[in-house]
């Protein structure tokens, strides 16, 4: 009771006290307080004084202004981040907020310009400023090598920006992919051969020649050829390239939830296969592989009678 009285006396007099009270309220309600809450707590406060106090707190950077479906919300800002922004003006704070909102995907400078409606030169100055203060950093995107996206300093860039496990410093590691490709294929092939040599009934043979993506993932992890941690999705992309090479086929089966390696009640099974056809007859002739096939006519400069590829092939 005494507390209330004291407050009542001090409320009407000093704006500083109003601000402190508002801050205490914010601390009580960490999600944020609405105008209504402040009014309930300080019924004698005039709206004008309230607004002044709120504005002061906002400009000091101690309160965050948010909007939700029912109106405006005021939230106490984290003091640590509040100290960071000391000395920077409103524009920088705006830009910083936009970058923060972009999360770990980062945001391009042109998009910052659109969102903040600031001219380009201002943006560039602010970005340089923030970078020197070590609040944000620039990350090169793999999609467009000239494009730089900005994100908060301590955030880990998202996969789509850096390209994930296959890119190291913006370079696509093709040898790494090739090595993984061959290893997976060898694993599946040896499994298929072992199944064939087993000489059991055909159903068992086929089923034992299958390997789930989880098994392949474990095998690759145990091999230890990768410096980067590979997830099952990564291994599946590698196995997909093997399917496009025609060396492997895939089926999906329904699996119980909770069995190792199942995703949404399904499991992908992979198995090495042989080609169904030998290289076809056309490619056994020089014409099938000839780079100037369409320029070749009888009586022309390039013709079957004078073809050097044919002469070489015949003398082979």
């Amino acid at each position, binding site marked *: 009771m005494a507390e209330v009285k004291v407050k009542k006396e001090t409320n009407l007099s000093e704006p500083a006290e109003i601000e402190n009270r508002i801050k205490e309220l914010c601390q009580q309600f960490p999600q944020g307080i609405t105008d209504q809450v402040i009014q309930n707590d300080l019924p004698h406060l005039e709206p004008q004084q309230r607004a002044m106090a709120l504005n002061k707190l906002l400009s000091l950077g101690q309160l965050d202004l948010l909007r939700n479906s029912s109106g405006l919300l005021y939230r106490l800002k984290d003091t640590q981040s509040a100290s960071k922004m000391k000395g920077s003006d409103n524009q920088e704070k705006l830009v910083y907020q936009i970058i923060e909102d972009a999360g770990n995907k980062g945001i391009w400078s042109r998009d910052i310009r659109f969102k903040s409606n600031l001219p380009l030169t201002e943006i560039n100055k602010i970005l340089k400023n923030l970078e020197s203060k070590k609040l944000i950093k620039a990350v090169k995107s793999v999609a467009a090598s000239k494009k730089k996206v900005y994100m908060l300093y301590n955030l880990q860039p998202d996969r789509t920006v850096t390209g994930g496990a296959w890119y190291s410093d913006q370079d696509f590691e*093709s040898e790494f992919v090739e090595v993984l490709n061959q290893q997976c294929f060898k694993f599946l092939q040896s499994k298929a051969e072992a199944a064939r040599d087993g000489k059991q*009934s055909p159903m068992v043979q086929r089923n034992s020649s299958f390997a789930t993506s989880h098994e392949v993932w474990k095998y690759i992890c145990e091999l230890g050829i990768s410096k980067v941690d590979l997830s099952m999705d990564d291994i599946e992309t590698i196995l997909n390239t093997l399917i496009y090479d*025609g060396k492997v086929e895939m089926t999906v089966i329904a699996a119980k939830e909770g069995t190792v390696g199942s995703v949404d009640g399904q499991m992908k099974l992979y198995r090495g296969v042989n080609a169904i*056809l*030998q290289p076809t007859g*056309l490619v056994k002739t020089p*014409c099938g592989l000839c780079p100037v096939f369409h320029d070749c006519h009888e009586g022309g400069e390039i013709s079957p009678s004078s073809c050097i590829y044919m002469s070489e092939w015949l003398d082979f």
Partner: protein
Amino acid sequence: MTAQEIRLCGLLLQEHFGEMVEKVGTHLLRSGAQNLRTIVQETNLSVDLVKKCLCVLVQHGACCFTSGRKGPGSPTEYRACCDRILRVLRYPRYIYTAKTLYGDTGELIIEELLQRGHMTMSSTVKTVADRLTQNMEEGHSMDYSEVSSTFSKLVETHFLQRCPPVGGAGTSGSAAPAAATSAAAAAPAAAVSVAPPTPESFPECYSVPHLSLIGRGKRQLVPENGEDQRNAKRAKMDTETHGDEGIYWQVNFERFHQHFRDQAIISAVANKLDQTSSEIVRTILRMSEVTTSATAACTKPLSANEIFRSLPASYNIPRHILDQYLTLLVDDPMEFVGKTGESGGGMFVVNLHRALANLARATIESIVQERFGSRSARIFRLLLRKRHLEQKQVEDFAMIPAKEAKDMLYTLLSHNLVQLQEIPKTPDFAPSRTFYLYTVNQLPTARMLLQNCYKTVANLIERRLFETKENKRLLEKSQRIEAILASLQASGAEPEQLSEVEEMISAPEKQQLDVLKLHVNKLDSAENQVDETVFVLESYVSSTSTS
């Protein structure tokens, strides 16, 4: 009738029938249906010569005649069939198949029929018996009945069929317009129909006539060159009758093609799965040989019980293992075998059209792989599976660095193996606001590669002719020397004379001749190999046009 096909037909006609026939044939191919007078005018050959050429073409089924466009009274028109002429390329394969299935007798029967076009059974049997007797030892000869039984077997399995009786079978020899018009008058039904009737529309197509043919093959004495020719001519005008006048036989190409297609499917299954599965598929195909029409999409359904009973005796696998194999065949992504019902332990069919599509796809993929490398082949297969993809997606799925993927895609695009589909976001096709999707269409690509195959075969034939022409002088010389040697040996000369004659060819010339022989053989075998590709692509294209 594309330019490449006409060029190839021209080369084949020239090699097998001579220049005059080639002129008339290519003229007919280029200009469509024409009557005799127009042909004579445009080819500048005499009427007799044109008539003889047309005879040859009709005898081999490469040309058909119909009544004129303006009604029953107008002169008949002749039309050449490009497909039939292209079959000439496949003759060695037909003869080889007959040899594997029916031995030397079958081989010679098919060879005779291919050479002569249409023949009666009796004359075929006699000629084949004579040829076989020629190669046997002294004192042995081939009995006519053996040859007749092989002939009947060939007819039973539909490899041979009767020629359709177009206006009286006696016109197989001459195709003179007079006979044709009288035939048109006598058989108004045939004149009314637009397309020539297929051989199979006649009920007696595969019935062997009763022959009174008894005897053995005659061995020919070794005559002089001039006498030999006279003998050959005399044999053609043999006037003995054996009760089968007017019944002419021809080779049933469709049946051979079915056989080749079955072989291709069986070997594909053997490569993909294992030997036993391919045997099961072979059994199913064998049982449906004569019950399935050439253009059917699937074979007739067969129950698992029937398959089990008809498996070859060497494969005594228990019933439940057979069921497992059949289930595996049905589950295979290639979809060679399908299950259509549950009665009788499961009804199974072989999906012919799908199998042909898969074989054609594998052929196209192998062509791309050999020509452009395995990474381009990866991109190609990716586009076949996923249909439409953007540039970025292609790079991501195929895991190929962006620069190289771009290069490969543009190479494939320039060779027309990959197409670009534009999807605009705005009505003006502004490049920055359209999606560009890469795609592969299997059927047009197959057609394009088929034309490439025809061009390749034509190139190989031309090169072979060029090589023989280059060394003509040398070949003639060697032929003369061989003739001299043969005559000397026949008249009993001493070894010194023989060696003297042999030395007329110097060693480098002999080497050159060997090299030439090697080259010609290589080119010949290459033609046959390309023909295999032609067969797969042609079957695929024709299967899609009927379905």
